[in-house]
């Protein structure tokens, strides 16, 4: 299994698009789609072949061995994340083929899209702190540029805000990495974990915790750091909103937090408590701010803040059930939130507005959009048998069984708030009396197909909850996160302990 193909295939696609597809814009879309399809298939193969490799594949990227080189590591958690990311990326790219006709510079869009995908796959696979930073910056750069893609004044403003906050916190992360390096003299994650485990807890580690929580917390959009998200995500073109809300905040944020704090630092209690607090705040504040929004996509942005809170409290509980809930909600949220963003894109494509006050009665004219949006609404508010129900139920049960009854009750109550603000969308956009906005254009085929597939996945992905599937495929992931030293132990045999001449 060559792990670097997850990185070089989209990177190559980005450069091929820039080199050859400037004039032929359909060619750009074809290259992007082919690259996405390729890595989607490979990530499925990797996921199912992983158990036969003992749960971990490690590739050194040069002739040296770690810790003297950068390594790419595929374990249960990262192969699962790869599937989530590449699935959403493929469907978004497919949707974008026709959606992007409303913009100029199609090839630019696809090149940046591929670059963003490169960064995310890199973050998921890397086993090296500085390499994590570099890939994070690659995907953030393209995200800033894509947020500003429409070059309207609001979009530029949102992109500048995002870029400022992103750059400040990325610098903090680099500072934290510097401090870690000064203590352990290594950048390989597993080696850092090994040295910290044998060396006790130095005081400087708390500064590193703080810097990393601020840094990755901003990328996750946890509440004190959430201000950029409701501006940036709605400003981007709809397929990119789906990517940003669906997978970018989870890859750069939640995945990086989990990998670093659980696998490297061994889940320190103080960090879990902070994450718990921030997660609860996110659920409540994000939920209540969504109700008052009138911009369709902005409402979805605040809803992302709220939903990411569920994922974070699931992980912060630190119990196997909580982590299972976190992983499931991460996957399910990626599906239904990208579906909802694609729907909002379809509404905007058809009517040229996303102000809920001007919309209304669209269910007759935009049948597919309205139906899929209903599926998304039911999923996100946790109505059985749609997928959101199972993940939220597990998180709430985990909260109660871990003795955090108040947080469990809050999570359950905000779930009702979620239903309230999505019913507002239903009432004002798709049902109710007709608004001033008219349907100017039909929603084209590719956009419809992507939405239908995602809506179907909302139902099909509930099948993960079947006990035998859960036992075979989800429990190893939970064990990877829970087994606080199993990651280090698995990488340790690959470490080169001989001294350099």
């Amino acid at each position, binding site marked *: 299994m060559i792990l670097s193909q997850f990185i070089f295939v989209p990177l190559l696609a980005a450069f091929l698009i820039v080199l050859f597809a400037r004039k032929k814009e359909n060619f750009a879309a074809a290259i992007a789609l082919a690259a996405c399809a390729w890595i989607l298939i490979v990530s499925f193969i990797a996921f199912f072949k992983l158990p036969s490799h003992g749960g971990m594949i490690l590739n050194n990227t040069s002739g040296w061995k770690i810790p003297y080189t950068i390594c790419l590591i595929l374990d249960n958690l990262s192969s699962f994340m790869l599937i989530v990311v590449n699935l959403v990326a493929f469907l978004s790219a497919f949707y974008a083929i026709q959606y992007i006709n409303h913009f100029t510079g199609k090839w630019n869009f696809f090149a940046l899209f591929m670059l963003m995908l490169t960064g995310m796959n890199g973050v998921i696979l890397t086993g090296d702190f500085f390499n994590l930073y570099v890939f994070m910056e690659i995907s953030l*750069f393209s995200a800033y*540029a894509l947020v500003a893609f429409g070059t309207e004044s609001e979009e530029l403003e949102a992109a500048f805000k995002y870029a400022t906050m992103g750059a400040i916190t990325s610098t903090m992360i680099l500072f934290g990495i510097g401090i870690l390096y000064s203590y352990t003299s290594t950048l390989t994650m597993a080696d850092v974990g090994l040295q910290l485990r044998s060396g006790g807890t130095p005081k400087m580690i708390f500064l590193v915790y703080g810097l990393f929580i601020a840094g990755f917390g901003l990328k996750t959009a946890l509440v004190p750091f959430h201000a950029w998200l409701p501006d940036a995500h709605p400003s981007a073109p709809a397929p990119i909103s789906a990517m940003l809300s669906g997978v970018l905040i989870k890859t750069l944020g939640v995945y990086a937090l989990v990998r670093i704090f659980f696998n490297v630092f061994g889940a320190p209690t103080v960090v879990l408590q902070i994450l718990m607090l921030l997660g609860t705040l996110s659920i409540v504040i994000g939920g209540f701010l969504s109700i008052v929004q009138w911009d369709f996509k902005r409402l979805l942005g605040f809803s992302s803040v709220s939903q990411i809170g569920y994922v974070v409290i699931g992980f912060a509980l630190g119990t196997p059930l909580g982590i299972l809930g976190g992983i499931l909600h991460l996957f399910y949220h990626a599906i239904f939130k990208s579906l909802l963003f694609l729907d909002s894109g379809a509404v905007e494509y058809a009517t040229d507005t996303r102000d809920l006050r001007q919309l209304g009665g669209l269910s007759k004219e935009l049948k597919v959009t309205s139906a899929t949006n209903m599926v998304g609404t039911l999923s996100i508010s946790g109505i059985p048998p749609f997928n959101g129900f199972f993940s939220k139920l597990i998180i709430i049960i985990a909260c109660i069984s871990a003795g955090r009854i108040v947080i469990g009750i809050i999570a359950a109550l905000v779930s009702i708030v979620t239903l309230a603000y999505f019913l507002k969308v239903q009432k004002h956009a798709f049902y109710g009396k007709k608004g001033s906005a008219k349907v100017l254009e039909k929603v084209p085929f590719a956009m419809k197909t992507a939405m239908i597939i995602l809506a179907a996945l909302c139902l099909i992905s509930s099948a993960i909850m079947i006990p035998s599937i859960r036992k075979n495929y989800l429990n190893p992931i939970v064990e990877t996160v829970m087994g606080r030293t199993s990651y280090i132990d698995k990488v340790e045999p690959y470490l080169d302990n001989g001294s350099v001449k």
Partner: protein
Amino acid sequence: MILYLMCFFLFLVGVYGAITKRDLIKIILAIGIMGYSVNLFLVLLAYRTGALVPILKKGLDIPASMMVDPLPQAIVLTSIVIELGITALMAALAIRIYQKYDTFDITKIRRLQG
């Protein structure tokens, strides 16, 4: 130690500037200062008093304890390139914002609210 403290002070100067300044260009410069301070910090980590260049060569037997650490220097090079990218992108955004709003003052650039 004093060098590290001054380096951290420079970092705080950058944070202060990025938080309090209202001019887009000054914010970009403040972020630049933060980046420089972190780069300086990384280079300071690598430095050893009286140490030599880290080159392995026959006839030039420098013990590993007498070499400066080459890894942070490589990191700093990469991080400088990344900062160049971010500065260029933010400057480009600032120019486009100026064309739309006719101002660099962030208190006047407020169309997104709620």
